[in-house]
């Protein structure tokens, strides 16, 4: 049924920390690995070892540069305001110019399991649905006719069409892991969360104010993507913390000890021998 269920109190989702994500793509690989063999699999690629491999991934990690950081209360702001344009400057004693007030942000993108997902309501077959009990958005791949309208309706690019299988596929929030009683309790988390080496991904119930993820969101000012479109995404992103501006740092290079420095006699002798 593609009509949406009544809003559930339980809203399972991910919280992704953009401050510490290092862009290693481990989440994407772990996701691909699990879901290729999971209950909704496989995720076959076209031409996997050829010149142009092409296939469905539920996680895509973008990398962005943010420049001209100037509207935030931090050291960066002052540094940026002091110069006419926040462009390249150099650290003293460094041969390499580094851009001022600039930082890179790695940005994992996956299904946000919206509360009012248009991808579900546009589905003509009932293959797309939102689970009433926990809000996970899923595709029944045995019903999907592959019209791809849901992918058009999603502004977040969460859905990818499998040309090999002729159906739409998407993040399942590892529904076949999180309720899987054959796994150890600590393993009942999405594969991407388990795989993240920096713990930048967190899984939990965002409908519960007292859950760890909700507290994290409250503490770090977690935000939703493109809320103005009205789909009410459940997933939250934690913004990067303000960075120190490297161009403002004092030089920390210590001069090498000179010969005049008093040294014990033995070291002085070794120094003399080695200096020949």
């Amino acid at each position, binding site marked *: 049924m*593609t009509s949406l269920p009544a809003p559930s109190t339980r809203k399972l989702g991910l919280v992704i920390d953009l401050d510490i994500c290092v862009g290693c793509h481990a989440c994407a690989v772990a996701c691909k690995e699990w879901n290729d063999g999971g209950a909704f699999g496989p995720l076959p690629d076209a031409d996997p070892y050829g010149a*142009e491999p092409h296939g469905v991934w539920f996680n895509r990690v973008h990398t*962005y540069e943010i420049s001209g950081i100037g509207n935030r209360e931090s050291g960066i702001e002052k540094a940026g305001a002091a110069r006419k344009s926040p462009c390249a400057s150099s650290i003293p004693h460094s041969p390499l110019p580094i851009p001022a*007030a600039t930082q890179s942000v790695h940005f994992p993108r996956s299904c946000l399991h919206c509360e009012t997902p248009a991808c579900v309501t*546009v*589905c003509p077959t009932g293959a797309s649905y939102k689970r009433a009990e926990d809000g996970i958005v899923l595709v029944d791949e045995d019903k999907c*006719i592959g019209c*791809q309208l849901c992918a058009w309706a999603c502004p977040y690019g969460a859905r990818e069409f499998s040309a090999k299988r002729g159906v739409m596929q998407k993040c399942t929030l590892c529904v076949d892991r999180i309720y899987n009683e054959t796994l150890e309790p600590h393993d009942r988390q999405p594969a991407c969360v388990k795989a993240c080496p920096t713990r930048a991904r967190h899984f939990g119930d965002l409908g519960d104010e007292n859950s760890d993820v909700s507290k994290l969101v409250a503490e770090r000012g977690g935000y*939703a993507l493109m809320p*103005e479109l009205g789909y009410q995404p459940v997933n939250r992103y934690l913004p990067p913390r303000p960075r120190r501006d490297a161009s403002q740092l004092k030089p920390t290079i210590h001069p090498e000890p000179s010969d005049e420095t008093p040294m014990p006699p033995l070291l002085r002798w070794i120094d003399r021998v080695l200096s020949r």
Partner: protein
Amino acid sequence: MRPTFSIIFFTVASGAGYGLWILAGWLILLAPRLAEDRNAWAANDLVCAALCAGFLLVSAGLVSSLAHLGQPQRAWRALSQWRSSWLSREGVAALLCYLPAGTMLLACILGSWTSADAIHANSTNWLLRMAGSRGAGAVLALMAIITLFCTANIYACLKPIRAWHNRFVVPGYLLLGTYSGALWAWLLSGVTQASLAPPSLLIGICSAAVAGGLLKLAYWQFLDKPAPQAPDATGLGALGNVRSVEQPHTEENYLTHEMGFRIARKHARKLRALVLACGFSLPALLAALALVLPSASAWASWFAVLIGMGGIFVERWLFFAEAKHAVMLFYGARSA
């Protein structure tokens, strides 16, 4: 958005087919008046031909739309979610539209109702009576309009695509469907009657062409106007200028293939001019010519259909090719 031949053909062909059915329904609504007319017989031939050609165009379009599906054998499932999905509603409406159209076509094939009077006289033949009634004409026209309305809303309901989610799309589909149907009706009037097209049809074609051209101009003006504010897709815009420096994948993926279509977008200006010239101006000029020079009507109608349908095909191609999807903002697009 990537223009797919199957969908473009579907919307153009079935649009013209529903346009023909709208006109056929309209003609039947006016049938009693036509019956008094000297040309009643011929006009009813036109109705039959319009029903038949509409049937072929609509069916060809719907079959073509199946070619876009990854699992076409499951297409029947698309009829189930009419409560929420415009695509499902379109499927249901398209099938329902076959009921009046099919009944009337059957009646045509039986060939017994060339005159409205004959039907009213023959009270025993309920099928023919029903099929030739004003009610049936009204139902057909209404169902065809509803189907076109649903088709347009499949696109117009998609918020992430600014070029589709606007007030021009639904009138555009309705107007261009009826207009292209009218071009076909003109052609059929020549074929069935081998003589004059009703002047009202030619005047209708001219005005629809002008209206269509103006509507497309307004639509393109809307497209070219920069969006009030492109959505801040990553939510990082509050920190500074966000620039995509590395993409998630080295090869094209489904999203960049489907939503990131940009081939020939640079030719959009020329193609728009082509749409205005072939889609609207030339058919309107030909119709005007047929008005003043009725002997030219037959051959002019052939040109008008060929050129006009070609122009509308380019228009539909542009409708897809010029549409930008919000997801491309993640891939560094400046606007959506």
